[in-house]
């Protein structure tokens, strides 16, 4: 089962954690991305402004979740949620939750999901710091999940 969502509201971490527990699974790994107070050469970051091609985000997240389930056939539940809009330092921008029969698959699949999300989902971050504001420096050419090499 998958749960994908893009939202301007705070992400429902507790609900995601409860939903992702699966009776056939002994491991649930949750990764949360949070807004950091600095970036390369940009001390004093105060907020991030996330912009998205909103109507294409959930289809891309769903393709990503389905690809994870193909790579790790034993996965129980996969949740991928991303927040957009203006987020202050400490706020949560992304949640990845993966349950699997054993911990190794849960760790590996959630790590693959967040890495792959960064290259396949049409979202952009703008950093606002004490000295100015500009687009995030760590970017990836937009890639299709289907074009990635097969296998974990």
């Amino acid at each position, binding site marked *: 089962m998958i749960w994908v969502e893009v939202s301007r509201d705070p992400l429902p971490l507790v609900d995601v954690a409860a939903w992702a527990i699966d009776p056939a699974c002994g491991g649930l790994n949750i990764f949360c*991305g949070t807004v950091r107070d600095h970036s390369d050469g940009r001390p004093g970051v105060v907020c991030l402004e*996330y*912009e*998205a*091609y909103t*109507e*294409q985000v959930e*289809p891309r997240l769903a393709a990503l979740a389905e690809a994870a389930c193909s790579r790790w056939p034993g996965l129980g539940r996969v949740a991928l949620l*991303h927040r957009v809009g203006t987020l202050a330092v400490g706020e949560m*921008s*992304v949640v990845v939750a993966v349950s699997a029969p054993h911990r190794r698959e849960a760790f590996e699949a959630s790590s693959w999901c*967040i890495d792959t*999300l*960064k*290259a396949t*989902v*049409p*979202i*952009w*971050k*703008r950093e606002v710091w004490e000295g100015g504001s500009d*687009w*995030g420096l*760590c*970017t*990836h*050419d*937009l890639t*299709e999940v289907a074009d990635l090499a097969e296998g974990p």
Partner: protein
Amino acid sequence: MVQVRLFGTAREAAGASVCDLQGETVEEVLRAARVRFGDALGAVLEHSTVWVNGEPASAEHALVPSDELAVLPPVSGG
């Protein structure tokens, strides 16, 4: 006319997030975008991916008036 959506640095370079442009193919619409918005957008286009109706599209891809063409600079979600 094709509806063109611009995001991130493309939106900033064009000063618009959406516009209508003429063209029979992706290449023609992007040429029209360069003419309308100038070199700043042209530079962004060099590094951007183009989708039509949510799917990757080549320069030769033929367009119909109801199509939505999106200019997607390198992404930075997460």
